[in-house]
């Protein structure tokens, strides 16, 4: 299990990276944390002609507060984000979720941006970013564009990124005070890719649910928002009966992969079981 040969570049300037990505003659992959890419290369499931190592780009490992959002740079590692006081204060759901994402040594190298670009349908952060309404800043040689997390994920290992583009920053808006959140997942072992992850945020205004956002991963070829269930939830009372009803509707609506030994029915069951727990946790955190 040794990788195929590749050309290696390690620019210290973002423009140089973008220029290399613009050279579409050579099949190029960005090497950030490498925690998903390198295993695939070792199995020879991936064999890029050229690796552009971005680890030496200056000033991309930031986690900083800006006007109403927190910006996380392309080289911020999972471990740093997990430990970040800023993230813990504004997005406790992220800190909680990180307990379930891989293990310390992997989090020490892996980056949030790399994880999002990898777009594993079982990965947690694509769901979190959608619930948190993140905006992704995408750069290429000719300029930058912004994509919402909801629009970013296209399918299994597939995003809207063009081959000459790089995700340079994630911007997560700071939620309104009083926003409650919930996170649940089921995996074979803690730290494994999840069979089903359910996340939600909501507020409760005068006894009624407001601004609910729900996202799930593991139950389709990409993480998705549950728009229809959010609509039902908006304005409803935060009761377990409502949550159960929403969960039943959500489980019926999704179309999970039916792979041997982890059936579509099972993933639907997980969504059905986890969603009420997530919603009631979110509601109770509003109260707190």
């Amino acid at each position, binding site marked *: 299990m040794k990788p195929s*040969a590749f050309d290696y570049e390690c620019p210290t300037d973002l423009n140089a990276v973008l220029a290399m990505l613009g050279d579409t003659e050579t099949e190029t992959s960005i090497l950030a944390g490498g925690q998903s890419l390198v295993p695939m290369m070792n199995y020879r499931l991936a064999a890029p002609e050229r690796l552009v190592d971005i680890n030496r780009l200056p000033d991309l490992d930031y986690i900083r507060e800006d006007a109403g959002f927190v910006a996380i740079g392309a080289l911020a590692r999972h471990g740093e984000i997990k430990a970040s006081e800023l993230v813990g204060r504004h997005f406790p759901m992220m800190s909680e979720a990180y307990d379930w994402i891989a293990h310390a040594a992997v989090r020490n190298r892996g980056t949030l941006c790399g994880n999002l670009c990898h777009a594993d349908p079982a990965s947690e952060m694509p769901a979190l970013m959608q619930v948190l309404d993140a905006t992704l800043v995408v750069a290429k040689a000719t300029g930058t564009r912004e994509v919402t997390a909801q629009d970013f994920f296209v399918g299994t290992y597939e995003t809207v990124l063009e081959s000459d583009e790089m995700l340079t920053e994630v911007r997560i808006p700071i939620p309104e005070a009083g926003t409650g959140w919930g996170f649940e997942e*089921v995996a*074979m*072992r*803690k730290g494994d*890719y999840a069979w089903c992850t359910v996340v939600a945020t909501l507020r409760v205004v005068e006894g009624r649910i407001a601004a609910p956002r729900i996202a799930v991963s593991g139950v389709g070829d990409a993480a998705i928002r549950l728009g229809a269930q959010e609509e039902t939830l908006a304005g409803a009372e935060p009761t377990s009966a409502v949550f159960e009803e929403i969960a039943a509707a959500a489980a019926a609506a999704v179309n999970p992969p039916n792979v041997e*030994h982890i059936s579509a029915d099972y993933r639907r*069951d*997980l969504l059905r079981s*986890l969603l009420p727990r997530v919603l009631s946790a979110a509601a109770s955190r509003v109260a707190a």
Partner: protein
Amino acid sequence: MKSHLDTNVIPPSRQREAPRAGLTWIGQSIKRVEDPRILTGNGGYIDDFKVPGMAHAAMVSSPHAHARIVSIDTSRAKALPGVIGVYTGEDLASVVDPCPSFASPPIPQTAIAVGKVRHVGEVVAAVVAEDRYIAEDAAELVEVEWEVLPANVDIEASAAATGDALLHPDDRESNVALDESFNFGPVEEDFAAADHIIKRRLRWHRSSAQAIETCGVVAQFDPYKGGYTIHCNSNFYNFIPFVIGGSLRVSPGEMRIVPKLAGGSFGSKVFSHKIIILTAGLARLAGVPVKYIEDRLEHFTNSDSHGSDRLYDAELAVDKDGTFKSLRFTVLDDYGAYLQFGVGTHGNAMAQVTGPYTIGSFGMRVKAVLTNKCQQGPYRGFGSEVTNWLMERMVDAAANELGQDPLALREQNMIKPDAFPYMIPTGNIYDSGNFQKVLAEAKQMFDLDGWREKAKKMRAEGRCVGVGVATCMERSVYGPTEWWSLNNKETPGFTLTSTPESISVHFDPSGKLFVTLHSPMVGNSPETVVTQILAERLTVAPEDIVFNYSDSQSGFNGVGPQGSRFTAMIAGACVSASIKLEERLKRFGAHMLQRRPEDVELRNGMVAVKGLKDQEKSFGEIALTSSFFRLSFPDGEEFDSGLETTAVYDHPLSTDPDEDRKHLGIFYPIVGHICHIVAVEVDPGTGKVEMLDYAAVHDNGTIVNPRTLAGQVWGGTANGIGTTLSEQFHYNSDGQFTNPNFAEFAMPTANEMPRNFKLGHVETPSPFTEYGIKGGGEGGRLGAPSALTSAIEDALSDHGVKITSLPVTPPVLRGLIRDAEQMAAG
């Protein structure tokens, strides 16, 4: 009354060192002697070893489960710079014959496939290159044209397959490689007379040990002497030259096999002969030393060490008062594409198939089914882990159907402490035991009564909490008739009956005791236990003992760590060596003290005059004098210089199988007993199982080192937890192995282990082994699956869920719950 067992006579005990209180070193948790070098990175594993001019091998592996090889084009691979050679099965066959087999008649297997492949991952060509990276590049350039054949995946379907679906059409007309039936005692009569017959269909799925280190070899061929030097991590290297010499076309003496510290085995490295033959053949073909270390993918798909994969139709005959009368079953075992050890895993299970219970007769039909999967090999339990689970499942089923308390039913049928040695229907004996004491200890440690109350209350609150108890046997000190006793008696094969262990010891002139072991270390603690036993027997200071490992040419008889045999067997060799060495020490020492040998004794590293304080000579002084001052002693060969000896210890208690297989003889008689009790909570919505509390009590006879034994129990329990809850190899309907990686084959991490694990020991010494030592290397995996399964079933008793198949992963368990919910909803 005449019995089928009358001819099976228990030989007298050969025990020399009686179990006793007040031992100095045996029973102490000394720190392991092996550890400092390992802790500092100097363990010396196979991949740490290199020789000048060494090249590296990589394999071209079959992507198909079953296919004819139409053609292989190696030209592009050979042209790659850095490549030394590319070899097909035909090329290898020019220097190497097929692999050895314990199946009789054998199922032919070659180290590189010839003509066709029979499972995904089977090697079709090998590359030898300057480094492993280039070798893998070249492997990608080998082009194979295939004719795909039907893949046999399902065990029952494969048993009925014909035509192109036959795996070995040249040798067998069926994919059933062996189909034998046995009746041990009056099975028919007992079933006919029984009040109830409990029936279950039980399924145990395939997994494997997956030690963190894979198998590896560094092989050199000497064209002038015509022999091989082979470094490897096999645990069986003193037997291997004899077994593989035929394949390598050399006499056993022309091979020097050098063991390396193995990074875990759990059975998976017991022989590992195929990789040795493969690498040796490549070294000969390439004309350079070759290193081949399996990568993880190869270890999953081609290491010939997959575990049991069985389908049972089992019946337990029970009287209405709950007395067990007889047990019988038909078992189909999916052995994969070959049958290297015959049905040895079923032979093994015959050692304790009726569990700790008085069951008068036992019958079995065993069918070894070949499929397009990697073949089976040993994994901790070697088949007995499955029959333990079967027995306990049948007892729980009986309790359920008879409306009895499962624990009371166990206690009612348990062999009583005064019944030992106890012969079970298959002819094996249980040398000793006190199962009631083990159970009592476990109940108390776990607070079983308290937990049962608690669980009931929690269930009343709607939680799915349950408690499971398993009382299981742990046979130890294996005898090799298990490999062949179930073969057809017309073609028994190689009827091996020896499983010796040996040791060589000598004092150097400085008084250090140099010990040479003839078996390797695989993660067990051979140096530590030998230190403790020799220190005990010779009163030598542990820090004065120095260890070496022999190779196959310098070494002597040894079978190595497997079948929970090593500690008990090496103890025997240590005692034999100590008796010989003591005699010499006393002879030389007495002469130096001007006394008669019968007037001196060994005392704190001295030969000392009995009853006198200051009349003594240290072992160092005696060693020095006996080594360098020959003229200080009388003439005569009894005073030949130096203090050394080699000693062999044979199996302490075994007999031949009956010729007509009315019984199988005594072959695995040193039995331990284990009781595991676990409380679990099931999340019915997700199928996740959480262990709330866990207690295990093991009786392994006299304990040499409590802490290293505890390590074995803990580790085995972790394996058993994985087997029960998360580990399974998945082959899809095309025979593709879909989870050959550590991300998807889910071995427990620290997070998956129980938080409140309590471990206890009862010591019922063996009357047959030195000091009463029993083996204890497999018990955790022999007990955990039964206890956990019972606990889960208990937790879901309100749902009516029955568990008849392992593992019960969350998707499987949720599926069972869903079915039960749908059934309840009508």
